[in-house]
Structures are given as structure tokens and as C-alpha cells.
């Protein structure tokens, strides 16, 4: 167990706390701009702290806020209660997967499990002992590691994690992912600026410099009610989100270490079972991103290439990074699998683990109502058609991968966003945070690719989409209440809201894709007209 922590946690922290690559743009810095920038960043940090405090306040009303039992927050895969149950089973040396209670990764179990003890047992003394033991082991591991790597900072952060309850972990995860989003945003912004400049579209680039989209995206992520609810409801989805964002960040910045952690993360995702068909999709995505991120800003270089000569395909990538990536990916997946194997060896073994994580997700076994679109369907369908429809639904996602990749290959990050949105739409157990993470991501990534932000200028009915989403997401719990608690409605009411939401999401995705394609067209037009002007 110690080994697990020793290896897993530090690598995360390491990648998180590494000083940001010198993002600060070099441009002709006037003093005023600098000042305003400082002001902006300070207000940014104020808001970040405020969001953490807000979360903590909400977390301290656990008795009154039953978020963790809401179907919108806790899905069979992400529910903390189930995790606690699995942890309890494991402690009593049974298989954590017994009784179809827990469906997550065994590693997650050892990671978060100890923190759930309090909520279950409610015996502070006992808990304290155990916690202290656990923490001492952890911090030992961390110390060793940090001594090795020389990052003393980590220890502090770790202490702060360890010192408080597990609930803090989730808010921390949120903050960290927000930071990652910010960093990614800044990186991307810089690269897009560069590319725009190289295309002589200085005005556009100026505009994009003015909006600090990374900050906006991070704040949107932090203050999104859905993230907050998921965090307060203590579902494990903040950690999943963190992992996804981390992998994207790693891919974008293409640091060795981060790519490493990205790959590690990728594997963890696989183990967390972050959605049906996770393996191929995520792998693919990862590859695209790593492909995109391999040189300083291949994002822009690809795009440039395409703009210059549309006939030529933007194949400038060398196979080396891809092979690198595959190599590391396989190593890490083997590694994580071995770890999992060790931790479930005594009870059940790998086969059971696969069955009750991926199997559970892919076959949609749990039909309790959630905000997804699959449960109702599979509750209604005849048993002998079940397999057929399972295949149909999962193929649905797979089919979309290739065409989208071809169409959007010059914008790997945006492609990643589209993939995430689609998979969260068709997931078997979506929760608010993961399902609506599509929303989060759309805002986050739109900020990140602040080009998209510009492109969204075309998005005329953003206003109506916004109100529609607000309305539907409020209507959904109302309908649930009407059905479950009052008994005056029925399942159709609730399912209708789920479908409505899916529709809104589809509209959102379609609109944003078309917006970005329009934007590309505009760029091309500008680029074509510019040289003419210069000649004349």
C-alpha cells in the first residue's frame, strides 16, 4: 500500500506544483498593462479563495444538505457512500466489489477510502488513530520522495491536505484543476497569439491578449454551481475531472514529466472507468493531444500550415513523440494494472475488478434513475434486445471519433473538448459534475482557446441556451421530487428533463463546433485578403 502512495501521489503533486512554464508573455510591456495585470491576478486569487471558503462553508452543513444522496451528484460510479462501503468491505477483508456496491478503481479506494471512515463510523477516537496512522505513513512517503526530488513545497501542501478531513480533498482537487485550466489557457493563448502574429493578423492577436481567458475559464470552473454541488456532495467526480484536465494539460505543454503524469492519469482514468468506451476514446484523444503538443505550439503550426496551403495535409508531426507516448502509456498502464492487481489480489483478482468496473459501466447494470438518457431506455427494453442496444449505443460514440478527428485535426484541444462533451452526454451514469462538465468544459475550453471565445461572438442565442440550461437543470430536481417524493408525477416527467438537457447539450456542441469552423473560415479569409492589400 505504501508503495502505491509513494508512487502515485507524489507524481501528481510533482506535476501540479511544478513552477509554471514561463508563460508570461514577453510583449512590449507597458507599465500600466502590468499594473492592471497585477490587479487582475490579485482579484483572481481573491475569487479563488472565496470559492474555497464557500465550499468549506457548504461542506460544514453536511446534515442539512443532502447532496451526497441526490441522483444528480452521486452516481453508482462516483458516490462516496459506495466508496465508503467498498472500503469497509475491504477492511473486513472481503472483496470491495462484493454486492455490487462499489464500482471504482481499487487504487481510488486506498486513496480516499480512509477519509470516509468518519462519515461511516462516527467514532472520532478510533478514527483519529487510524487517520494519524494513515497520515504518518503518507507523509513519510512524501517526505522521502520530496527529499529525493528536492521539492520541499510539496510537504506543506500535503500537510494541509492531511491535516483536515477528506472533504477538503475534493475542494483542493477543484482548485488544482482550476489552476491547471488556467495554465493550459495561458499556454494556448500564447501559442494562438504567436500563430496569429506569424500570420500578420496583429489586431486579432491583440484582442486575444486582452482577455485573460485562462483566468476566466478557471473562475468559471470554480464557481460553476455544478462543480460546487459535486464537490459539496463529495462525489469522486472532482478527482476524475482533475485527472482529465491534468492529462490535457500535460498533453498541451508536452513536458516530459507531465506527459508522464498525463499518461499515468490516463490509466487512472481507465481504472476509474470514466465512461463507456473510455479506453479507445481517451487513448485516441491523448494521442492527438500529444501529437498536437509535441513542439512549442504545434496547435498553431498545424493551423498555419493549413492556412498556407490548404491542399497539403498538415502532417508535420514526427512519429517519435507518438512512439514515445505509446511506450510510456503502455508502461504506465502495465504499472497501474500491476498495482491494482496487488491491491485486489487477496479478494477477487483482476477479473472481478474488470467485471465490476468496466463491465458495470458498459453493460449499464444499475438502472436507478439518474440524469442520463440510458437508464430509462434499458429499463424498458426487452431482455433479449439488450445486448444489441448496448452495442448500438456504444458504437454511437465510437462512430463519432474518426469524423470529428478528421474535421478538427488542426485544433486538438477543441477536439478533446468535443469528445468529452459527447461522452458525457452518452455516459451510462452521468452525474451533474461529469455530465455538465460538458458545460464546464465548453466554458473552460472556450476560454482556453480564446479564439473560440471570439468565435462565439457569432453564437447569437447564447442567451437563450443559457436560460434554457438554467431552466432545465432546475426542472430536473423538481421533476424528481414530484416523482419520488410526492408521488404525483412519474418517471416520464423526470426522463423528459434528462432528454431536454441532452438536447440542449447537443445544440451547444453543434453550435460551438460550427462557431469554430466559422472562425477558421474567417481567419482564412483575412489571411487571403491581407497579402493582396500589401501588394496593392
Amino acid at each position, binding site marked *: 500500500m505504501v508503495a502505491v502512495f509513494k508512487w502515485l501521489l507524489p507524481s501528481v503533486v510533482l506535476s501540479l506544483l511544478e513552477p509554471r512554464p514561463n508563460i508570461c508573455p514577453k510583449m512590449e510591456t507597458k507599465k500600466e498593462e502590468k499594473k492592471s495585470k497585477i490587479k487582475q491576478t490579485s482579484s483572481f486569487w481573491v475569487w479563488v479563495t472565496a470559492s474555497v471558503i464557500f465550499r468549506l462553508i457548504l461542506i460544514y452543513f453536511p446534515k442539512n444538505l443532502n447532496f451526497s444522496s441526490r441522483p444528480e451528484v452521486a452516481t453508482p460510479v462516483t458516490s462516496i457512500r459506495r466508496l465508503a462501503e467498498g472500503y469497509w468491505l475491504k477492511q473486513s477483508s472481503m472483496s470491495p466489489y462484493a454486492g455490487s456496491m462499489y464500482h471504482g478503481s481499487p487504487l481510488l479506494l486506498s486513496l480516499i477510502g480512509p477519509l470516509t471512515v468518519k462519515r461511516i463510523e462516527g467514532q472520532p477516537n478510533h478514527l483519529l488513530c487510524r487517520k494519524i496512522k494513515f497520515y504518518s505513513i503518507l507523509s513519510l512517503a512524501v517526505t522521502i520522495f520530496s527529499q529525493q526530488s528536492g521539492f520541499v513545497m510539496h510537504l506543506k501542501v500535503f500537510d494541509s491536505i492531511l491535516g483536515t478531513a477528506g472533504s477538503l480533498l475534493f475542494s483542493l482537487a477543484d482548485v488544482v484543476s482550476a489552476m491547471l485550466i488556467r495554465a493550459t489557457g495561458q499556454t494556448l493563448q500564447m501559442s494562438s497569439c504567436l500563430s496569429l502574429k506569424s500570420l500578420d493578423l496583429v489586431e486579432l492577436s491583440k484582442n486575444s491578449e486582452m482577455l485573460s481567458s485562462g483566468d476566466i475559464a478557471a473562475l468559471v470552473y470554480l464557481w460553476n454551481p455544478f462543480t460546487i454541488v459535486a464537490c459539496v456532495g463529495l462525489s469522486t467526480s472532482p478527482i476524475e475531472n482533475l485527472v482529465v484536465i491534468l492529462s490535457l494539460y500535460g498533453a498541451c505543454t508536452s513536458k516530459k514529466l507531465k506527459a508522464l503524469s498525463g499518461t499515468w492519469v490516463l490509466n487512472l482514468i481507465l481504472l476509474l472507468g470514466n465512461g463507456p468506451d473510455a479506453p479507445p476514446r481517451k487513448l485516441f484523444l491523448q494521442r492527438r493531444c500529444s501529437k498536437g503538443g509535441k513542439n512549442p505550439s504545434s496547435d498553431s503550426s498545424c493551423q498555419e500550415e493549413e492556412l498556407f496551403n490548404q491542399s497539403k495535409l498538415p502532417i508535420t508531426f514526427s512519429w517519435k513523440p507518438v512512439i514515445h507516448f505509446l511506450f510510456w502509456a503502455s508502461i504506465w498502464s502495465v504499472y497501474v494494472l500491476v498495482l491494482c492487481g496487488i491491491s485486489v489480489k487477496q479478494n477477487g483478482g483482476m477479473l472481478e475488478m474488470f467485471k465490476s468496473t468496466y463491465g458495470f459501466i458498459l453493460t449499464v447494470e444499475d438502472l436507478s434513475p439518474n440524469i442520463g438518457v440510458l437508464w430509462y431506455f434499458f429499463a424498458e427494453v426487452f431482455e433479449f434486445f439488450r445486448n444489441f442496444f448496448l452495442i448500438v449505443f456504444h458504437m454511437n460514440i465510437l462512430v463519432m471519433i474518426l469524423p470529428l478527428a478528421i474535421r478538427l485535426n488542426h485544433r486538438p484541444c477543441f477536439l478533446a473538448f468535443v469528445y468529452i462533451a459527447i461522452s458525457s452526454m452518452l455516459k451510462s451514469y452521468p452525474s451533474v459534475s461529469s455530465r455538465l462538465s460538458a458545460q464546464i468544459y465548453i466554458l473552460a475550453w472556450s476560454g482556453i482557446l480564446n479564439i473560440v471565445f471570439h468565435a462565439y461572438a457569432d453564437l447569437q442565442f447564447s442567451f437563450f441556451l443559457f436560460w434554457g440550461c438554467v431552466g432545465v437543470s432546475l426542472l430536473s430536481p423538481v421533476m424528481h421530487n414530484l416523482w419520488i*417524493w410526492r408521488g404525483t408525477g412519474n418517471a416520464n416527467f423526470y426522463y423528459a428533463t434528462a432528454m431536454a438537457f441532452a438536447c440542449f447539450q447537443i445544440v451547444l456542441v453543434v453550435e460551438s463546433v460550427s462557431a469554430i469552423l466559422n472562425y477558421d473560415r474567417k481567419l482564412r479569409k483575412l489571411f487571403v485578403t491581407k497579402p493582396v492589400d500589401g501588394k496593392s
Partner: protein
Amino acid sequence: MAETEVSKKRKRPIVRLAVLLLSHSVLVSVICCTAGVFGLLLLPVLAKNTYISENALMPGSASSMLSNQEVSEANKLIKELNNLHSNPLGATTESHGIIAKYMSNLGAQVNNHKFHPQLNQFHPLHFFSGPDSGVMQENSTRSLYGINTVGIIRAPRGDGKEAIVLVTPYNAVKGGVRETLSLGIAYSVFSLLTRVTWLAKDIIWLVADSQYGEYAPVAAWLRDYHTPAFSNLDSLNTETCHVGNNNFESKISYGIRRSGTMAAALVLGVAYGNENEDTLGIYAEASNGQMPNLDLINIVHYLAVHRQGLRVKVEQFHWLLNSKWVKSLGEVFESLGKMVKTLNPDWKLGISAADYVEGAATLASSLYHQALGVPTGPHGAFRDYQVDAITLEFSLRISFDRLDRRNDFLLHGGRLIEGVIRSVNNLLEKFHQSFFLYLLTSPSKFVSVGVYMIAFALLVAPLPVVAASLYAKTLDLNPTSEKDKSATSNELGSVLQSWKWLNSVKTVFVVHFWGATVSLLPYFISQIPDSDPTTNFSVWILLSILSLEILRWILVSPSSHIYGLPQGEWAILKSATISSFFIGLGLMSVINFATAEIGALLMVPMALMAHPLKLDVRGQSLRSILRMICNLVLGVISFPPATFFVFKGVIEGFSGIKAGDFWNWVESLWAWNSATYLYIEYGNIDRLSSDKRESNKDAPLLSCGMLLLKEFA
């Protein structure tokens, strides 16, 4: 909305229709609003006759078995209890003992249930709390307690999985003949049911100790019935076993005895009638406008009218019965109905003016009680556990002193209850066949959800149209103004333009947030010891103004002047407000229709009329001045305290209105977690008073969010 916008680009017929709608939004909204109000007034005409929808009920198919034998037994009980009341010392404990003794003599399982009346206290997070949090707080008032007596008959043909509940509120301290009579009815039925062979569901008879109000004991019993409390039980037992000095009393356990899920519950009451015939009053409204299944009311009505010859009445607004304009409206509808009938004799819209007035009065009271969200009797407690329940209130023509008259009454009442129980006993599933969402216009007439929703939909339909048209207008407006400037350089500007609505959304959000704060304030104010309602009220007002200023200072001011043209801004702000308002009303109509309807009546005109006062003042034309006056009047009227006072003034006369009344009213509303309470926070008018003068209103959105979470409580 989104669809119409999408299709606007391509010119299909539907698009042209949408454009037409948007461009004539004023006309559309006027027509829709009028139609909505008209539809509401038309509801009594459109009411349908009730019918028994569930076939399994078969009311009245078996002849009644209740005979004079049971009645005379019941008389014995009544006499004994009445004797007890003549010497009030020690009546409390003894009456429980007597009732318990009678129950167990019949062969029922008896137990006492001790409860501590919970002071109905508003708690800010109660709206979000789960069902178990009520149990936690119970150890507050230990000294006060009441004792319910519960008797259970196990059904010979059942498996103990289902039960029917009879509730008789009984105040042992100052209970009069009234209450003993209702006990008598219940006892006669109970004694019959111990002997019948057809019983398939257990019968639970709850004698609720009503010294702390009728609702509290029933709610407490239901809570304990549904939440097994393992630790509390023992302490209760040891604590109270020595209370009974009676020998028999001490044998009765204080643990909760349970049966299965409850199929239905009947609360019995007796009132002194001053009318010419025996009547039966039915009270059905539970908390937050929830109603029991219509079938339950139907069987009671059917049996009462057709078997026992009682006149059934539901609550009415009596002041409406005499009002002139309702009468004239009824006459108009009558003549209209006649005219329609000449066109096509199959259309049966005709309704006499007197019927219309009756229907309108009943409908108004039905709407009012549903909207208020305060249950009209102990039956409200059952609805929180998805049990259909109604209160039956018998009222007698003459006094109860004459024995033969009393026997007759007991016989009729008992037979009615027996018939209802027998029908419910036939049920195989829980009530589901008939309506849950309806309004009553008379005991035998109802308006179903499909009909009254039309009126509501018409009323709120202008909101999205106006919001869309306002937004579209600003979109049209902006590009032109943008083109005047240098088109190329202002890329950023156009981006900000197209996202400018975010700013107004933020404003709306801030106002909602303020509404939430204001609505939570009374909790803290009520903590102030020794304060009378008037001061509380003024403190509340002061604090809310203060919080508004603080919020403006913190959140609104820095960004409000950064973006955009003031010209378009108020339009976008209005459009955002209207959208949020529409969502709120829509949600509210799902949760509690009546609240939504009344809220819509008050606020839709205001929302549509809202216009910056400053522009009006500057305009100085007759039209703008008229608009300004309308705005002011509507703004004042729909400000909740003002609404309250106006209503009170209309109903009771304007003399003797105190500011404290509003506070009292509000206090009674939290106590019941009423949805209406949440409407109060829409007093957020004129938040932009300083610069934009945009009448801003709010709150249903919030109210819904809170309400639905509250529902778990």
C-alpha cells in the same frame, strides 16, 4: 425560444411566424394576458363532474353492517368520557386510560405514543434538509408532551403490509361533546371492524392528543411511525412508565406499534352546525398545494350523498358569494352559455349564474388554500408521506343532547366511515387512478390540470416572447451602432457586445441572491427576545435595505459601468429578468400551481410593463406618463407587504391594519414552510433605483429551488 431564433436565419413559414410574433410582441402579450385572465375566470364553467375512476373501489356495493349495537357501545364510551369531563381533575390521564381500555376490550393492540410538540420554528436551512433532521431536534422541549393513543386491528385477510388510518383529534383537558362524539363515531366503526371478516388491511385508530393543536400530534406520530428510532425508544419507556397511576395504564407500552404502509387516512371531526341540514365538510388541502387523490373525495362524496343523505360542502369564500361583480360575471357567462347552446346543442357550457358564483367562491378558496401552502387540517401531515388523507367534519342540525338524535347521527356517521373504509379496503394498489392535480369548484365538480394549465400557460406565454423580442431588438441595434465606429478594430468590442447579456444576468443573479438573503433574515430577527411584530417588521425592512446597499457596493457597482450602451442595457436586463421570471413561474407551476397562478397574476403585468422611469420622465408624452403611473402602481401592488395589506383591506376593511400583521402572517407561513413565503422575497423592486430605474422583480426562481429541496422535509 432557441428554435425560433435558430430558424430565423432561414426563411421558412415557421420562421416568418416567429418573426411576426416577435415584432408584435406588445399585441401578443396583451392578447395572451387577457386570454389568461379570462381563462381563469372561465374555470368554474369548464369544471367537469367527478367520477370514480378506480373500479376496485366499488363504493356502496355492500350494505352497511353497522347497527345499533355498535352505536350503543359507542354511547357508553361517550357517556363515560363526558362524565370524566365534569370533574376536570385528572381527566387527562384517565381519559387515555379509558380509551385504551375500550380499544383493548375490542381485541385491538393498543399502545400510547408520547410526543413532544415541536414548536414550528423557521430554520434557514430547513428547506434543504432531509427527512431525518426533524428527529434530531426533538430533544428541545422535554417538559411539554402529549400522549396519543393508538389502536390497531390486524386484518384477518391481510398480511399486515397495508393499513387504513382513522384519526380523531381529542383534547383530554378541555374536550367537549364535539370531540367525544367524533370519538364515538370512530369507536363504533372500530368495534364493528374487529368483527368483520372482509378486512384485508389493518385498521389503525389514532386518538390524537390535540392540546397542542391538531396537526402536531399527527405529524409527530407519523414521523415516529416512519422513522425507527432505536436509541430514543428505551429512554422514553423508562421515563414515562410511571406516569400512569392507573393500573391498566401502566401496562400499555409506549413503543410504536406498526402496521404496513398506509393506503388512506380519514380524520374525523364534529362541528356545531348552524345550518338546516346535516352537512359534511371535506377539507383536502395539504401542505404546499398538494391534494389527495380525487378518488378519495369522490367516494366520500358518493357515499355521503347517495347513502347517508348528508349534504357535502367544501370550503368557500363567503365574501365572494355576495359580491356583485362575480354575480354579474356569472350572468354574462350564463347568457353566453345559452348562446353557445343555440349554436350547437351538444356543447354543454351553460351554467347558471348561481352555480357560477358558488363555483367561483369554492375555486377561489381552493386556490387560496393551495397557494398559501398551509394544510387545512391534520390530514396535511399524511400527504408528506404520500398517504392520501382528508378531514371529514360532520356538523349537526340540532344539539347533541338528545339521545335519539345522537344515536341517529352516530349511525349515519359510522356507516359513512364504514363504507369508505370498505371501499379503500378493496384497493389492490395505492390510489393512482384519478387526479392528484385538480381544483375543486364544488364537492362534485373539479377542474383538472389539463384545463387550468391552459389558462396559466396563456398568462405566462408573453414572457418568453417579450424576452426574445427585447433581446433580438438589442441585437439588431448593436451591429448598426458598431458599424459607425471603425469596424475592424473593434473585434473585442463586438465580442463583448455579444456576451453583454452576461452582465445583466449577473445583475439578475445578484438581485436573486439578495432576495434569498432577505428571506433568510427573519430567522435571525426572530431570535431577538421580547419583540413585538411591528418592531420586528421594521427591523426586517431596515436590514434588507442595508443588505441591498452592501450587495450593490460589493458586487454590482464595479462592473456596471464598464460595458455597453445604457440604451440597450435596460432592455437586455429586462429580458434577462423576464427569462428568469418565466423559468421561475414555470417551475412553480409544477410544484404548486396555485402559487404560480396567483404570482403570475400579480407579476406578469408588472414584468411586462417595466420600463425605466428615467426614460419615461424624460419622454414627457402622455403615453410615457401613463406607463410610468402604471409601473408605479403595479410595482407597489406586487410588493408583497403591499399585496398583503391590500388584500386584507379588501376583505376585512381597511381599519385596524397594523404593520405587525404582516410579520405575524409571515411567521405563520414559515412555520409551515410555505411556498408562498418564498414569494415574499420578490420585494426586490427598484433595485436599480439609482441609475437605471428598472423595476426589477424576482424570486419565483429561487423559491422553486428552495421549495423542491424543502419537500424532503
